[in-house]
């Protein structure tokens, strides 16, 4: 009677094949699930997907737009991955991005006549400092009183968003902007140069270089080794003489600083001004990106492009009458299947033998 029973058996070691295969299968399953929903609403799923990916990856315009969306995702996810490596759950990338955008904006608004070689590095530094300080605000109570950083970083997101809103609706509002909630247009010196004639900006180069740097830091550096030990066991880290408190401060500062840089590339590279709702939730999507990439910086680059494509594809399918929310649905489904699929990396499924229970 047990002939058809299956058994989950713990693997002695996680299967390396599964670590690679699970994310791929998860994407396919998510598309399949999406297809079921699409056909239930009377759409032809193949046609919808063809439009989505044909637009997002197939056309030159679509692909550059995909990259445009991928830049802030990459930067924020890279920032998040540093904190997550140490098991510091920084979910405040969104707020850190907003603060970065805010600080970067201050420079061209206050000194509009600076030359580009001072303006751009200045904006980047300010953005990183502001994002970093936003991370530090959560890090200090964490280091001293063990205050849960999940709560503090999350709440600081709203504070940051409200600060930006206050400024763009109030003191920084463009006097010639017909009362729209945005600042004045930045001078040319404050705009990140684009790649070719597209909207893709130099932020992409920055993000890819940073990913390579982080990959090396995580794998080969003393600093990355400490990160890994503290993340795995605080007890052991203390025993080995590592300074945990200092590390919490530094890590959350860096994590926030990189997300802050994402804010700078948005205002300087894409929009050219600070405005209400500067990020449509990049900081949150980046958490999913970092997690799907298993905190591997090079994987983050690829997964960010995939998620960028989903977003652009989402806009594209509106033309054929499908809501853009289909992109968010697919993102959610991918995460769902990846988390579920993790069982397979740690367990194997075996047919139970007869008589075995």
């Amino acid at each position, binding site marked *: 009677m047990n002939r058809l029973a299956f058994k989950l*058996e713990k693997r002695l070691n996680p299967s390396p094949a599964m670590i690679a295969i699970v994310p791929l299968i998860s994407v396919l399953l998510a598309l399949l699930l999406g297809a079921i929903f699409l056909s239930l609403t009377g759409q032809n799923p193949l046609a919808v997907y063809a439009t989505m990916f044909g637009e997002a990856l197939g056309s030159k315009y679509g692909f550059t737009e995909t990259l445009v969306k991928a830049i802030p995702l990459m930067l924020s996810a890279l920032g998040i991955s540093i904190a997550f490596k140490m098991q510091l759950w920084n979910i405040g990338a969104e707020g850190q991005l907003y603060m970065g955008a805010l600080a970067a904006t201050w420079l061209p608004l206050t000194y509009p006549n600076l030359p580009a070689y001072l303006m751009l590095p200045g904006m980047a530094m300010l953005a990183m400092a502001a994002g970093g300080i936003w991370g530090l605000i959560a890090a200090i109570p964490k280091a001293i009183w063990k205050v849960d950083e999940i709560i503090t970083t999350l709440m600081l997101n709203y504070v940051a968003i409200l600060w930006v809103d206050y400024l763009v609706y109030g003191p920084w509002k463009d006097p010639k902007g017909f009362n729209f909630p945005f600042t004045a247009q930045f001078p040319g010196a404050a705009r990140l140069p684009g790649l070719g004639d597209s909207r893709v900006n130099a932020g992409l180069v920055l993000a890819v270089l940073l990913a390579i740097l982080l990959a090396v830091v995580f794998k080969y550096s*003393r600093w990355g080794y400490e990160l890994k030990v503290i993340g*795995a*066991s605080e*007890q052991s880290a203390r025993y080995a003489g590592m300074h945990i408190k200092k590390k919490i401060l530094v890590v959350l500062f860096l994590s926030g600083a990189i997300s802050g840089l994402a804010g700078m590339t948005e205002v300087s590279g894409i929009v050219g001004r600070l405005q209400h709702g500067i990020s449509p939730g990049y900081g949150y999507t980046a958490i999913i990106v970092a997690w799907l990439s298993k905190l591997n910086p090079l994987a983050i680059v690829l997964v960010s492009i995939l998620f960028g494509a989903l977003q652009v594809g989402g806009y594209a399918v509106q033309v054929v009458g499908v809501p853009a929310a289909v992109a968010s649905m697919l993102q959610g489904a991918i995460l769902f299947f990846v988390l579920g699929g993790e069982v397979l990396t740690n367990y194997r499924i075996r047919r139970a033998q007869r008589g075995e229970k």
Partner: protein
Amino acid sequence: MKEPLISLQGIVKKFPGVLANDHVNMELYPGEIHAVLGENGSGKSTLMSILAGLYRPDLGKIMVSGVEQKFRSPRDAIFYGIGMVHQHFKLVEPFSVAENITLGEKDSFLLSKEKLKTKIHELGEKYGLKINPDAKIWQLSVGEKQRVEIVRMLYRGSKVLVLDEPTAVLTPQEAQELFNNLRRLASANCAVVLITHKLNEVQEIADRVTVLRQGKVAGVLEKNQITAQEMVRLMVGREVALNYERKPSSAGRVVLDLEKVTALNDLGIPSLRECSLRVREGEIFGLAGVSGNGQRELAEVIAGLRRIESGKVSLDSQEISHRSPREIIDLGVSYVPEDRLGMGLVPQLNTMENLILKNYHQPEYSGRWLLKPKVIQKHAEVLVDQYQVKLASLHQPVKSLSGGNLQKLLLAREISGAPKLMVVIYPARGLDIGATEAVHKLLLELKSRKTAILLISEDLDEILKLADRVGVIFNGQLNGEFPIEQTNLEEVGLLMMGSRSVEERIDDNEPACL
């Protein structure tokens, strides 16, 4: 011949990658004390878990009084009269003894308190297990808690009592009392199963021994065949030295000097109280004591992991009282903590990463920024080979290693730094005979290289085998100290229970037992 109470026939249990029990047969007769002996991983815990209904066997039968029964849960096992006393007690601390005894009984609240107390009292009288039913568990000593566990099983009608390493947490005196009680239980026609790897206990109390090796029964010895040599031969499959060749210590200068050190435990209560202690170059100072008397705090104070409130710690006449853990590591202090996997080693990291845990910052293993992967790998290869750590791959997370291999790995790292002072706490806890021998030999070899060693242990045999001087820690203070030649087991046992300050014990710690 009498009919067996329980008979296990051809028990097979597989786990992924291991055959834990391979056609094991065992019979338990009423009135016998039956020891189950085996190294770690020999399958004794698995076998007992099957007997107690925690696991179901893949193949084989459990016969209760000659009838085959299937145990679907521990409840079934209890129903058929099998009671298990685990090493870690399953008691609810704030509850009273009586409440704990009826815990989990579905209809217990119908039973009147008076009847229950009479029953507990009766059981106590019959088997000599006297216990106050109104005492709260947290008020009891470890020995008394164990007694509650036993009474609980008897109360539920257990005829077969399985005890998992019952003496691991007891002082010699408490252990002796336990054995007397077990004797009485056996003479009342119960069967007692004792899981252990302490040979002297088996010799002292067991009527029969089943020795397991690699999941199979290696042999069954009757009372008159039980000798330490024979048991070890069956367990390990080869001869093992029961005593080490001891070289007289050439104790030199004082390396570690603690002067009236006071420190708090994690709850903020003083657990080292003006403790003074000295360890010399080239000697093993064995510190005996029941755990929880300040041992862990002492070790952490020396390693710089715990702040001291007053007093002074010196290493080679240099004060290290307020140095950071890293400075103390770099001054040549090694520390093997009791919590191997969680403090001493990082479970998720691999062997190479674990072997550089304490010296990754030294120029040998890293530059200003980057680690030196080739040097690190070479270092790991050499140590794994030299210390005979068995592992599948250097890249595998260490959490999959056995206890003995973890301890070897940990010692390899701590010894390879050629320390001036080595603090080891419970080094052989949970290790089997083979691994224990290996660990002890490493410590003796380290001693011959002039390292001062502070050996903190609860196992008096271990201390007597290794130490040159013996001290006893009780209630955060050194309660007696002798050279090994003058050490008397009886006296050390009494000191471990604080006999020198009897008045004090009555004051702040009135025994809860009647």
